[in-house]
C-alpha cells in the first residue's frame, strides 16, 4: 500500500543528480557495504542484551514493590539481578550498539572503507563472550563487590581485549582517512579510544584498599560515563542532527569549547559520590568544583545543537531519527545540569543514597545515550540493510513508550527520592517511614520500566525484520508522517 503513494514519475525525478553527486553517493554506498556485517553483528547482539537487561531491570524494580516475590531462588534475588541488569545494559547494550554506531560513523566521516574488518569480528565475539561469562558469574553470586566493576576479572579481561581489537580497526580506518578536516564527532570518538583503556587498566590494577578503593571505585564508575558512554552519545548527536536536517552544525568554535572543557573537567567528577565520606576534604571539593564547571561544556553543546535545529523543529514530526536524537540531546542537557547541582554538598545531603540518584542515572544512560543510539540505528539500518523499516507505526510505538516511560521513571524517582531523603534526615521519624513513603513512586517507576520494555520489544522485532528484509516492501521512508513531496520540498 505504501508503494501506491509514489508514482514512477516521481521516482525518476528523485533520481536526477549531477554526476558529481552520483559519484559521492556511490562512494557512500561502498563505505556502507564495507561495514555492513560487523555493524549488524554489534547491533544485533547489543539489542539482545538490551531486551535481556530490561527484563532483569524490571524484575529488580518489581522487587521493591513485592519484596518476597521470587526471593526463594538465589539467582533471582535482588543482590544478583540488579548487577545483572546494570552490566547487561551497560557493557552489553550501550557499549555494543555504541561500537556499531562508531564503526559506521568513523567510516563515513573518514570517507574511507573500514579497515581490518577481521578485528571487528574478533572484538564483537570476545566482547559478547565476556559479557555472557560475566553475567553468568553474577547469577552464581561471583561479584567483585564494586559498582560498575562487578564482573570477575576474566570477564573484564575479555571485554578489554575486545575493546582493543575494536580500537585497532577504528584507528587504522582513521589513518587511511580521505579528509583533512576532522568533524566534531570524530574528536569524541578518538578521544574515548585513548581515555577508556587507560581508565579501565588503572581501575583494575588491584592496588587499592579501604578509602582509596572507594575513591577509585567512584572515579571509575563516573568516568566510565565520562570517557566512554557520553562521548558515544555526543558523537551521535553531533552527527545525526545536522545530517538529518541538512545544514552544518552551528559553530565550530562552540564545538571546540565544548570538547576541551569536557576533556578538562569531566574526569574529576567521580568523587562527588563520596560527599561526607572519610576522604580528604580537598578531594571532594575539587570534584564538586569540576562537576559544577561541567555547566560550561554542556552549555556549549546544548547551544550548538539548539541553534542548529532552530527553524527546523518541524522535521521532528517526520524523522524518527531526529526525534530520538533530539530527545537524547535535550536529556543530555537536563541530566548534566541536574548532575552539577546534585554534586553540591547541601543537595547531596538529601538526595544521595536515595532513589533520586537512580532517577538521575537513568535519565543519563537511557534518556540521553540509549535514545541517541535508537535514533542512530533507525538511520543506519536502512542504509546497510538496503531495506526500509517495514512498520513506521512500531517506530512510533517505540518512541512513545521509551519517551513516556523514561519521563515517568525519572520524575517518579526524583520526587520519591527527595521525599525519602528529607525523611531520612529527620531524626524524629523512624527509618521505616522513609521507606514506606517511596512505595507509590516505586510503583510508578515499575510502570515506566514496563513501558520501556514494550518499546524495546517493538524495536527488537522490527530489527529482526529489517535484517531479513521481511515485512511489507516499502518504497518510501518509514517516517512518522509522510510529507507531501512538492518541488521545493523534496525528501530528505
Amino acid at each position, binding site marked *: 500500500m505504501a508503494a501506491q503513494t509514489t508514482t514512477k514519475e516521481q521516482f525518476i525525478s528523485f533520481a536526477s543528480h549531477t554526476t558529481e553527486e552520483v559519484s559521492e553517493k556511490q562512494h557512500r554506498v561502498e563505505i556502507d557495504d564495507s561495514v555492513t556485517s560487523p555493524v549488524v553483528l554489534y547491533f544485533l547482539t547489543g539489542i539482545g542484551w538490551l531486551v535481556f537487561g530490561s527484563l532483569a531491570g524490571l524484575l529488580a524494580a518489581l522487587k521493591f514493590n513485592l519484596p518476597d516475590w521470587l526471593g526463594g531462588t538465589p539467582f533471582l534475588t535482588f543482590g544478583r539481578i540488579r548487577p545483572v541488569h546494570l552490566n547487561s545494559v551497560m557493557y552489553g547494550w550501550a557499549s555494543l550498539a555504541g561500537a556499531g554506531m562508531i564503526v559506521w560513523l568513523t567510516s563515513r566521516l573518514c570517507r574511507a572503507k573500514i579497515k581490518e574488518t577481521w578485528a571487528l569480528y574478533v572484538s564483537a565475539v570476545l566482547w559478547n563472550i565476556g559479557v555472557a561469562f560475566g553475567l553468568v558469574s553474577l547469577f552464581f553470586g561471583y561479584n567483585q563487590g564494586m559498582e560498575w566493576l562487578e564482573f570477575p576479572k576474566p570477564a573484564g579481561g575479555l571485554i578489554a581485549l575486545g575493546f582493543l581489537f575494536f580500537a585497532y580497526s577504528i584507528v587504522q580506518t582513521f589513518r587511511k582517512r580521505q579528509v583533512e578536516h576532522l568533524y566534531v564527532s570524530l574528536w569524541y570518538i578518538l578521544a574515548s579510544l585513548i581515555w577508556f583503556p587507560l581508565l579501565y587498566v588503572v581501575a583494575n590494577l588491584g592496588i587499592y584498599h579501604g578509602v582509596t578503593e572507594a575513591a577509585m571505585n567512584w572515579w571509575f564508575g563516573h568516568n566510565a560515563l565520562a570517557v566512554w558512554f557520553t562521548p558515544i552519545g555526543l558523537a551521535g548527536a553531533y552527527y545525526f542532527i545536522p545530517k538529518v536536517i541538512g545544514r552544518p552544525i552551528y559553530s565550530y568554535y562552540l564545538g571546540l569549547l565544548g570538547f576541551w572543557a569536557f576533556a578538562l573537567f569531566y574526569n574529576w567528577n567521580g568523587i562527588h559520590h563520596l560527599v561526607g565520606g572519610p576522604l580528604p576534604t*580537598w578531594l571532594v571539593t575539587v570534584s564538586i568544583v569540576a562537576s559544577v564547571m561541567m555547566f560550561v561544556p554542556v552549555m556549549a553543546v546544548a547551544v550548538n545543537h539548539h541553534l542548529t535545529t532552530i527553524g527546523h523543529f518541524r522535521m521532528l514530526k517526520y524523522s524518527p531519527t531526529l526525534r530520538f536524537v533530539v530527545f537524547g540531546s535535550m536529556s543530555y542537557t537536563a541530566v548534566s545540569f541536574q548532575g552539577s547541582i546534585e554534586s553540591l554538598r547541601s543537595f547531596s545531603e538529601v538526595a544521595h543514597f536515595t532513589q533520586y540518584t537512580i532517577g538521575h542515572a537513568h535519565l543519563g544512560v537511557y534518556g540521553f545515550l540509549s535514545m541517541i543510539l535508537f535514533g542512530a540505528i533507525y538511520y543506519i539500518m536502512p542504509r546497510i540493510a538496503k531495506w526500509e523499516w517495514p512498520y513506521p507505526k512500531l517506530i512510533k510505538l517505540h518512541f512513545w513508550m521509551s519517551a513516556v516511560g523514561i519521563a515517568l521513571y525519572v520524575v517518579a524517582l526524583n520526587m520519591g527520592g527527595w521525599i525519602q531523603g528529607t525523611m531520612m534526615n529527620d531524626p524524629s521519624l523512624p527509618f521505616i517511614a522513609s521507606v514506606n513513603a517511596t512505595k507509590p513512586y516505586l510503583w510508578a517507576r515499575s510502570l515506566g520500566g514496563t513501558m520501556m520494555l514494550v518499546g524495546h520489544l517493538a524495536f527488537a522485532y522490527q530489527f529482526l525484520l529489517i535484517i531479513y528484509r521481511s515485512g511489507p516492501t516499502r*518504497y518510501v521512508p518509514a517516517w512518522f508522517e509522510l510529507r507531501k513531496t512538492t518541488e521545493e520540498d523534496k525528501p530528505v
Partner: protein
Amino acid sequence: MTQRRKSKKSEGDKRAPQSVPAPVEPIQQPAFSDEGDSFIDSDSSDVHKIHFRIVSREQGEPEEGFEPTPSWVWAVSVLLLFAMGFYLGKYGGSFDTIAHQVEQPQLPGSGEVKIEVKGDMVYAGVCQACHQADGKGVEGKYPPLGGSEWLLQDSFTPARIVLYGLEGEIRVKGKGFNNKMPQFHDKLSNEEIAAAISFARSAFGNKAPAVTPVEIDSMRRTYTGRMAWSAAELENLRKKQK
C-alpha cells in the same frame, strides 16, 4: 567551509540554501552495484530500487558552520570559573589530608550532645517487624503486646525477654505460641530497651508504668552470658520475686 552561514536571517528558511544542481538525464546504468549483498530472499530488483531511493534522499555528510560563540556563553563560563575558584578556596581544606573539615557541626553548649532516645522509634525500627505496628502480633507466630500479661504484670519479665530472648511454648492472652524471639542485649543500649518497653507498656491500650535504663542495666548484669529464656523459667522467677 563553503557552507559558512551568511546571517541569522537564513535560519528561518526551510532548508539550508544550496545551489540547485542542474538536473541531468536519469541515470541509465545502476549508479552503484548491489554486489556484496549479504542479505537473501528478496526480489533483488526491489532491494535495488529501495536502496537507490534511500541513498538518493540522504543529505551530505555534516560540516561545521563558523558562527562565533555567543558572548553570553563566555560570560557565564568566566563567572562560573570565578565562583568555583572562590568555592575551592573556601572549602578546599587547605589541601590537607584531613576529612570532614568542612561544616564541622557546631555543638550546642559545651560537652557531649545528648541524643534523646524515643520509644516509638525503637519499637518501629526493631519490634514492629514481628509484633506489628498495632501491637497485635501475628496469629500463631508472634504473640500480641497489647494486653499481654507478660509485658504488663511486672517490669522485670519484659526486660529479661528483650535482653536475652525467649524460646519455646508460651501462652499469651489464652493463645498458644511456640516460636523464638532473638536476644537484644548485644544490639540495643539500656536506654533503647527501656524506651521500647516503656512505649509498649503505654501503647496499644496498655497503661503500665515506664521502665528505667537503670533497671535494664541491673538485669543485664545479673544474667550476663545466658541464653534465651523459657516461659516456665520466667514464671518461676516472677513467683520467687513476689
